[in-house]
């Protein structure tokens, strides 16, 4: 009845993880454990983590802390954490604590994928802004 985590097969340097249920003070260690190998890297390391939150009903500051930690680990190696389809309660909490920049929140997996493709093309063609 608490948190369920579905980790998709890795696709290139992109990893999709879907969360269902409640990410709170009881369940955040489960997410930390599931994300540890993803954040540790691999060869080549995961550069984009897409968190699909369509099935997540509730988040508290303990859950925010886990997502924040994941985001830091990724940005430290110039990677990205994208969030897809947060439900209203989740979006509200994200807004209050500014957990994820607005530009990293998408309303569908397809939209996030399109964004990642675009970034990828920029990197390959060498015309990335920074």
């Amino acid at each position, binding site marked *: 009845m608490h948190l369920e985590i579905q980790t998709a097969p890795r696709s290139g340097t992109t990893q999709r993880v879907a969360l269902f249920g409640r990410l709170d003070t009881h369940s955040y260690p489960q997410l930390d454990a599931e994300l540890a190998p993803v954040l540790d890297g691999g060869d080549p390391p995961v550069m984009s983590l897409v968190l699909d939150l369509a099935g997540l009903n509730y988040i508290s500051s303990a859950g925010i802390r886990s997502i924040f930690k994941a985001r830091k680990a990724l940005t430290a190696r110039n990677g990205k954490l994208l969030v897809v389809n947060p439900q209203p309660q989740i979006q509200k909490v994200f807004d*209050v604590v500014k957990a994820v920049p607005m530009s990293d929140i998408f309303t569908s997996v397809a939209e996030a994928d399109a964004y990642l493709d675009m970034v990828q093309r920029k990197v390959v063609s060498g015309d990335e802004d920074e």
Partner: protein
Amino acid sequence: MDISLSVPAERERLDDLTVAIAAVMERHAIAQPVIDDVVLIAEEVVCNAADYGFDAGQEREIVVAIRAAEAALHLQFRDNGRPFDPLAQPAPDLDADIDERPVGGLGVHLVRQLARRVDYVRDGAYNVLDVTLDLTPSETGDAP
């Protein structure tokens, strides 16, 4: 609605409290977003009390009282932990570079932001935190 619930201030007891609170609010047809906010506030306050409020071995108790009146829901948390005034905490710097910000320190901020109003007093051996939330007019708080 006028009920108060008391559990030992331990993380393991949090869900008994929130499940009971949610059931009572559902009975009074309180809207789900308000229930979510109340459960979140309870989680933040109870976990903080459990994590930081007590010396090892101390008897730990936390009481939550809920009352609906007019267009407001009144929560009162009362614990016998060390004096702690959450309103005296500095707000986190949310406008700092997101990659430089500390990962924690958001619980108290969330409580303050979700509530219409928060008041704190130390009452003898007790921390007393009054939290008021908005109800939409259709949520009477007085189920039959």
